[in-house]
């Protein structure tokens, strides 16, 4: 089998796996998992809100690793990976930022709670939107890869300091609104299934995005022969 065919076959299998995993996740989250005492069915958003956050952070970790590797090896493939991971990370973080308010409004009667997790997610989201923004403004692909790798590293190093600062600040300015969280043992299976499902989704989407970017890069290489 050629490389391309092998890749397409793997993608198809992975795609089916994602589908199955997502169906399983939906079942577990909505049917299998017990109903929460105080919030009722609304709490089920947790099974999608938290795994999204986990995947977002995972994506940014991949972006960091790929950025470092790019600066060391100067191989554009690392930049393709960094970009794919960065984009997916922003998508997952956006899900976190959307599901957060959906959850908060019925429970706390406000759209936004400035809770540590939500606030850190917002800043993280902004950092990686900035990453994508920088990329838009550098036309030369070689330079673009270089500059975004630098920013990718900065953003990831900054993230823990941001999280820590926000948490500490919240301790000083406490609010009655508690962080959404807490898992009773009965909820754990559903949670783990959801995390696993999101992980397969993460792998699938990053893979597809990576191959799209590789294809674009290949076009660039081919165009060099013409122009």
């Amino acid at each position, binding site marked *: 089998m050629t490389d391309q065919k092998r890749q397409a076959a793997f993608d198809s299998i992975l795609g089916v796996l994602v589908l199955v995993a997502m169906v399983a996740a939906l079942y577990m989250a909505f049917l299998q998992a017990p109903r929460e005492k105080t919030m009722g069915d609304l709490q089920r958003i947790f099974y999608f809100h938290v795994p999204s956050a986990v995947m977002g952070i995972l994506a940014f970790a991949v972006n960091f690793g790929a950025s470092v590797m790019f600066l060391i090896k100067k191989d554009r493939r690392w930049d393709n990976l960094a970009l794919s991971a960065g984009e997916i990370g922003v998508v997952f973080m956006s899900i976190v930022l959307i599901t957060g308010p959906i959850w908060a409004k019925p429970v706390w009667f406000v759209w936004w709670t400035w809770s540590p997790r939500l606030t850190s997610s917002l*800043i993280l989201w*902004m950092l990686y939107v900035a990453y994508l923004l920088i990329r838009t403004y550098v036309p030369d692909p070689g330079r673009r890869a*270089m500059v975004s790798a630098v920013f990718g590293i900065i953003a990831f190093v900054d993230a823990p*300091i941001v999280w820590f600062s926000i948490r500490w600040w919240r301790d000083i300015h406490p609010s009655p609104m508690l962080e959404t969280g807490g898992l009773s043992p009965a909820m754990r299976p559903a949670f783990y299934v959801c995390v696993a499902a999101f992980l397969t989704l993460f792998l699938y989407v990053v893979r597809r995005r990576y191959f799209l970017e590789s294809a674009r890069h290949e076009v660039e290489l081919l165009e060099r022969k013409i122009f």
Partner: protein
Amino acid sequence: MQVGMLAKIWAVFRKDLLIEVRTKDSLNAMLFFGIVVLVIFHFALAGAGDSIRQVVPGVLWAAFAFSGTLGLNRIFAVEKENNCLEGLLLIPVDRGVIYLGKMLAVTLFMLFAECIIFIFCLVFFNLTVWEKLPWLALIFFVGTLGFAAAGTLLSAISINTRMRETLLPLILFPVVLPVLVNAVEATNVALNGTADGGLELPLTIMSVFTIIFVTISYVLFEYVLED
């Protein structure tokens, strides 16, 4: 760090200082804008009334941050004119040396502007702060250093993109948020004497931020200016 390197950093610092003393471009812009920001906040926070003293730390650092952005922009814009960036790249010296020299210069300019903006703040908001001055000086110094540590690198990045100076605020603020949050809290503790937070933690976080960012900026600066 060898003595030779210190002399080279000093040469870069002195050059920027000399240009600034002669043109006063940065200083004038930062001062004027900082004061404008104070005035805007006075109107924006008209509802605060007597509790204005509690929001002064936030207002002050907002003014410092916004005016600081102008200084950060100028520190590399002055090189972009006349193609001097290339001249800097040609110098057979570690690129990090250029970063350090410029970072120190912009810190000095910002501190100078901040002192004057602070005086206006005292006048506008009717404050007395004599006993607290040493603490405030320390907080301003550490906070500004942190702001400049990250800002200098980010300014070098933005100056070479399509949007040039306009990009800096977009990528700067998510990154330096920890400095701003901690600086505001520390200023609050110093000014209003609240026992909640204490000064040690915010000063420590800001210092850690500064050390981390000076280090990675020194290393990464290499990759930011070249073609």
